């Protein structure tokens, strides 16, 4: 217990230090690297708090994809902040101090950290913990809640990801004048980096295999469609960075990705409609098979697949859109 608490304090203090460093450093490249560290630290903290599924996701998003996207943008907009001419910092600083103090005061009204009988641990949480292993028939309660009890909510989240991806593609690639061919970035950019390429070649198959494991083992251990999708996308993005975008597009062309992004959402929605047709409610999996528990298994497997397909293809598509935009205008700083 003491070790856990000490680790908790150390990790949280490191997080605060990283955040302050992000606020102070003027070199945007350094701040992006710092935010990668920030992502990794918060993932470690989530493991400490028993949130293994969340840690999985935060490690691959916060320390993986987020800094990558930021770097792609920096290569386009420049590495350094301009020196601010306007002096607004002091009143803003005082304002944040005041609102921070008010919030601090409010924490004294909160139930103490880690209690067994706090309001947050009552109501539905008890039902999820006590009944879901029998009712849904899978050990990972996070997957049960995500895919079955709150399946409608998760459908909404997947739709938001889908919509945001469409937004990115439209905003970045929607303004290309017809006839003006976009030149792809040189595939030989990374040819000198032999070590990176060879290590990458060894790692990428393992990353993709691991993503599939996370996808299909999500019922029994930490994992599921969201985590698997992000990890899979990281593998493909690593390939695109090391071996060139045109090589990556030979494996996963843009039109295919666009189709897959929509396909995942459609799989998810179709499972819901199948429940309706079988005589149950929307996204009620119990009616999908002869007995409720195997119905739940089937439903969760299918919708996790839908989530995984949409998340993976969205992330790769977003990366393609950024690297096409930031490299084809000839303004890449190297």
């Amino acid at each position, binding site marked *: 217990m003491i070790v856990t608490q000490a680790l908790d304090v150390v990790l949280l203090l490191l997080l605060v230090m990283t955040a302050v460093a992000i606020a102070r450093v003027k070199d945007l490249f350094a701040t992006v690297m710092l935010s990668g560290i920030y992502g990794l630290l918060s993932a470690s903290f989530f493991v400490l708090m028993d949130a293994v599924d*969340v840690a999985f996701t935060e490690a691959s998003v916060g320390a993986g994809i987020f800094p990558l996207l930021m770097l792609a943008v*920096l290569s386009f907009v420049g590495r350094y902040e301009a020196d601010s001419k306007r002096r607004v910092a002091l009143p803003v600083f005082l304002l944040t101090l005041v609102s921070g103090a008010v919030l601090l005061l409010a924490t004294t009204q909160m139930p103490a950290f880690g209690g067994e009988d706090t309001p947050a641990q009552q109501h539905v949480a008890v039902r999820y*913990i006590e009944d879901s292993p029998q009712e849904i028939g899978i050990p990972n309660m996070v997957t049960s809640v995500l895919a079955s009890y709150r399946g409608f909510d998760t459908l909404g989240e997947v739709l938001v990801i889908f919509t945001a991806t469409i937004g990115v593609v439209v905003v970045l690639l929607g303004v290309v004048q017809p006839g003006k061919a976009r030149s792809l970035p040189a595939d030989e950019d990374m040819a000198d980096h032999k070590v990176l390429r060879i290590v990458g070649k060894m790692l990428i198959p393992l990353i993709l295999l691991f993503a599939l494991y996370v996808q299909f083992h999500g019922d029994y251990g930490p994992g599921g469609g969201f985590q698997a999708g*992000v990890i899979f996308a990281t593998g493909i993005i690593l390939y695109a960075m090391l071996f060139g975008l045109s090589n990556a597009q030979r494996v996963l062309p843009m039109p295919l990705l666009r189709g897959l992004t929509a396909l995942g959402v459609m799989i998810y929605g179709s499972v819901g409609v199948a429940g309706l047709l079988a005589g149950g409610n929307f996204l009620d999996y119990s009616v999908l098979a002869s007995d409720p528990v195997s119905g739940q298994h089937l439903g969760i497997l299918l919708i996790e697949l839908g989530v995984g397909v949409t998340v993976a293809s969205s992330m790769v598509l977003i990366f393609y859109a950024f690297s096409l935009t930031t490299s084809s205008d000839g303004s890449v700083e190297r």
Partner: protein
Amino acid sequence: MDFFNYWVVIALMMTGLYIVMAQQNLVKKLLGLNIFQTAIFILYISVAKVLGGTAPIYTESATLYSNPLPHVLILTAIVVGIATMALALALVVRIHGAYGSIEDDEIRDRSKQ
């Protein structure tokens, strides 16, 4: 010690808020927004923790589990967060294309002309 996690959440939140309000650079503002968002993730996950509990995956040997519901909410929020962040970054790229700058005050000056 009872509220240490919540104090850190507030410190992180205020750091993020300060960056969003005080910095002129749009990329930096988004980094601040990211810090703010992660502070909220930490708040939820801290609320879910039960001392002496274990990860919410059923085993024969455990009886006390942390609350799975906030985990679900935050797990999806992280992935939704990166998708919406990508949209914001795409807008930053387009703003740079239109104004030649991503500094808030310069953009304001140029749009007045």
